[in-house]
């Protein structure tokens, strides 16, 4: 065995790597034949609806559910206390985020509600409409409490303390201090300072979260259909908190209508829905409606940052110093914690540049608003926007061009492997090559000339750049080390069937980014079959190898590599048995286009279908002392580096209407280095979709709250999201620095777009407004805020 010639996936003839093949699983979605969780009906299924707290902070004095229980179709009404009897509470802290604290959280509020939208009473009925009707009949006697909503004020001595036992509302604090920051500021030719505010926004997956839970008391088996990014993580969580063995919990994830980090957490209403099926012994479906999603889904971002940068005469960045504060709601989210976002900001800021002096403080604060946690590009938009705005600000103070100052400070491409000032190890990045490539795509001189000319006629256009790094494909150093049941490894099983088809099963999930396409391309290449021979299975804890799922841009880098290794193993198995059948040495054979061929000539010797037939039906024709195998499983976990960092550079071209404050997006360019590109078509639209989400945060999206903690715009009419008419075409280019931690060399590409866009647009808007003396340091840059910066409104 394994004496076939050593080839990497890249050397294979008939390779599908790097080719823009369409996704194998897209046809059903195009024909309206997908299976999203809400499309599933189980026998005797009932529907849950939740009464949610109308207050940001209030005691529940009593609950009267008599009328609701008697309402038509109602199967049961349950309070937080009744649900808590079935289910252990959870604590959303990670042990490696030292000193972080968060109290036990129950699926539903018990005596006190701590945010507007917290589930309080569960009502189950024959139809969703009946359940919603009955929710209205539940009477709760509330005693409203003073709320700590504003995250900065939440730390004041006189602020209401949300968890009395802690004495104040601080969840976690981290301080980084490297080099001699004070000395660097003393020496600086120029010091620039800004105060940034990044608004609280949310994920708005078009498909809301969705769950159907089904308990079979005869076998003590819990089956959960769920729109999720991490089936095995949820399996572990359901098992742990309901006191079940993991094999008594099956999580099935069919089609997922977008996730972006929204569907990778533990939500009380979902855990409660699992408790409901145990109480009622009937399947229970719960789909939050859109308005509910606005206060029940995690929120993201919301930082206020005071930052300054010290720069030498020649433009060299001497030091960065910032103080970041973020509000996370009343609990840290489980199991990822709500500390990772700010941790990323502290780890990543300044990452593209050579910086020797660095000081940062991050504070995470409890408040009476929905929970905040990891959403696409976790911390990156904040780190990148702060860093890049400071760089532009410094360039302006020095009278230097914004490209020139970046050229001066970007880590040289030949300096890798290296470490950032915060200790992040980088394998191989390509900031200069990416910048050069971008400048080949953007007519920078032309844009500057146009800008000059347009200004003469009162038209204000701006150009903004953003250099960035992105965390992808994390090792166990991200979550596992902190004690969370989140696997950093992922597995792929390949099985050749009796007709020579390849059945691929993996622990990653598909939520539209193309994970299944990548698995298919890699497996096809590594084994030697055509993609039409492949069937991919994901999203079922009972039949797929154990793995973390799809988040943190890990599907391609981790499961892709497992597919490559499983492909080699299966190929060796096939060649071994084919060698016996053909009386040939396996190393003289190869598999190409679904057939075993002579490695030298490429002449077909035997088809894979024939190999399958003999192995499965006519093993009697094989030697008696020989047992063939046509199935192989391989796992992959990153070992060499804690993260497969990628890099990118963005350029945004905007026009600001100084009378209305509206920012018009004229053009957008991105160059991304995500290592080996498996499928350019998928990567490019992934980057574009990411940029558009970044544009949402930069210009439109914000959860607006009253002082009392009431969401003011919790619907899709008032909460603005990017729509097609306002979005620019986006040009994407690639530089390739393969990941040295794997044969495939791929890194992730899912989040760079979102991480970089707010920075590029912020800089472009400020560049446009420069002659008017206006400067914005806030996201989203709404027309009102632009006008305020221009002094045209209060």
């Amino acid at each position, binding site marked *: 065995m394994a004496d076939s010639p050593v080839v990497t996936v890249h050397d294979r003839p008939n390779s599908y790597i790097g080719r823009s093949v369409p996704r194998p699983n897209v046809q059903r979605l195009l*024909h309206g034949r997908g299976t999203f969780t809400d499309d599933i009906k189980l026998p005797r299924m009932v529907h849950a609806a939740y009464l949610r707290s109308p207050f940001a902070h209030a005691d529940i004095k009593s609950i009267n559910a008599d009328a609701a229980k008697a309402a038509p179709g109602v199967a049961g009404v349950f309070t937080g206390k009744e649900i808590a009897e079935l289910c252990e509470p959870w604590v959303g802290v990670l042990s490696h985020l030292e000193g972080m604290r968060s109290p036990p959280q129950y699926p539903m509020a018990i005596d006190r509600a701590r945010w507007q939208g917290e589930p309080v009473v569960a009502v189950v009925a024959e139809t969703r409409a009946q359940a919603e009707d009955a929710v209205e009949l539940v009477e709760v006697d509330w005693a409203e409490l003073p709320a700590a909503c504003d995250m900065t004020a939440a730390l004041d001595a006189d602020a209401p303390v949300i968890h009395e036992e802690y004495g104040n509302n601080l969840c976690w604090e981290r301080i980084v201090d490297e080099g001699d920051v004070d000395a660097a500021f003393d020496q600086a030719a120029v010091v620039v300072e800004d105060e940034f505010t990044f608004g609280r926004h949310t994920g708005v997956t078009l498909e809301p979260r969705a769950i159907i839970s089904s308990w079979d008391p005869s076998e003590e088996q819990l089956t959960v259909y769920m729109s999720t990014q991490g089936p095995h993580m949820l399996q572990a969580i359901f098992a742990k908190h309901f006191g079940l063995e993991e094999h008594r919990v099956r999580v099935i994830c069919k089609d*997922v209508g977008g996730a972006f980090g929204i569907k990778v957490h533990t939500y009380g209403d979902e855990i409660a829905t699992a408790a409901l099926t145990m109480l009622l012994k009937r399947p229970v479906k719960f789909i939050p409606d*859109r308005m509910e999603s606005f206060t029940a889904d995690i929120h993201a971002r919301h930082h206020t940052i005071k930052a300054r940068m010290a720069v030498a005469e020649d433009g060299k960045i001497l030091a960065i110093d910032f103080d970041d504060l973020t509000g996370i709601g009343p609990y840290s989210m489980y199991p990822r914690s709500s500390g990772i976002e700010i941790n990323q900001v502290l780890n990543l800021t300044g990452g593209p540049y050579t910086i020797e002096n660095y000081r940062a403080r991050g504070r995470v604060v409890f408040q009476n608003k929905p929970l905040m946690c990891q959403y696409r590009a976790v911390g990156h938009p904040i780190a990148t926007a702060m860093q890049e705005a400071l760089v532009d600000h410094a360039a302006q103070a020095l009278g230097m061009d914004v490209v020139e100052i970046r050229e001066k400070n970007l880590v040289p491409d030949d300096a890798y492997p290296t470490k950032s000032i915060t200790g992040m190890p980088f394998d191989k990045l390509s900031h200069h090559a990416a910048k050069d490539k971008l400048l080949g795509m953007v007519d920078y001189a032309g844009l500057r000339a146009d800008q000059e000319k347009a200004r003469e006629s009162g038209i204000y256009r701006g150009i903004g750049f953003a250099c960035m790094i992105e965390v992808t494909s994390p090792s166990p150093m991200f979550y596992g080390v902190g004690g969370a049941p989140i696997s950093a490894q992922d597995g792929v099983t390949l099985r050749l069937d009796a007709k020579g088809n390849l059945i691929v099963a993996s622990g990653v999930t598909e939520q539209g980014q*193309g994970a299944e396409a990548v698995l298919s391309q890699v497996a096809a290449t590594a084994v030697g079959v055509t993609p039409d021979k492949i069937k991919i299975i994901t999203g079922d804890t009972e039949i797929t190898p154990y793995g973390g799922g799809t988040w943190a841009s890990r599907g391609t880098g981790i499961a892709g590599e497992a597919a490559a290794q499983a492909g080699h193993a299966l190929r060796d198995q096939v060649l071994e048995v084919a060698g016996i059948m053909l009386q040939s040495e396996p190393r003289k054979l190869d598999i190409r286009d679904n057939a075993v061929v002579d490695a030298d000539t490429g002449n077909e010797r035997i088809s894979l279908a024939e190999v399958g037939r003999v192995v499965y039906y006519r093993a009697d024709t094989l030697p008696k002392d020989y047992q063939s195998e046509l199935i192989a499983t391989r796992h992959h976990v990153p070992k060499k580096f804690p993260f497969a960092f990628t890099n990118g550079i963005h350029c945004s071209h905007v026009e600001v209407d100084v009378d209305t404050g509206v920012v018009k997006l004229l053009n957008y360019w991105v160059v991304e280095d995500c290592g080996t590109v498996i499928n350019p078509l998928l990567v490019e639209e992934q980057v574009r*979709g990411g940029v*558009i989400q970044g544009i949402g945060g930069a210009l439109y999206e914000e959860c607006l709250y009253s002082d009392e903690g009431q969401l003011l715009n919790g619907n899709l009419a008032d909460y603005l999201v990017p729509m097609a008419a306002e979005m620019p075409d986006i040009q994407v280019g690639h530089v390739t620095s393969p990941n040295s931690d794997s044969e495939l060399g791929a890194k992730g590409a899912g989040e760079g777009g979102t991480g970089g866009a707010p920075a590029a647009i912020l800089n472009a808007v400020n560049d446009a407004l420069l002659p008017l003396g206006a400067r914005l340091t806030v996201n989203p840059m709404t027309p009102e805020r632009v006008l305020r910066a221009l002094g045209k409104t209060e």
Partner: protein
Amino acid sequence: MPDSIDIPPVVVTATVNGERVSRAVEPRMNLVDFLREELELTGSHIGCEHGVCGACTVRVDGTIVRGCLMLAVQADGAEVLTIEGLSESGEIADLQENFKTRNAAQCGFCTPGMLMTAAELLAENPGAGRTEIRQHISGNFCRCTGYQAIVDAIEETGRNRGEK
């Protein structure tokens, strides 16, 4: 107590994807729930239930409507076409092919509504340019793609139809 609980069901009879169907439903039931729950045509999706996202777009008597803003009873006697019927008729086979080759569907949740909306534009004006296409689909929210692939796919389909 909400009034609707006591209101008796109303019979709705419509032709859906060419098939005559009849169901007794609550008067408050909207069209997309009727299609999904009563007829089990789950290709039309629900993204907001308040008329903004376009995921529920279906064709009623030749015009696209938001299935969450129309009541099932209003479709009594109407011809309703959903993504399932539109696919089977072959009317948008070229558009679907271009969506596939351009990667214009990611999670696919917006896709049926997007195809419905695009089909209307292509029927009216296959020569529509990118700006017009963007305007026409600007009532359909897609959270995954950059919209660009969708615009490409629609533009390409229109171009090919124009050449025929």
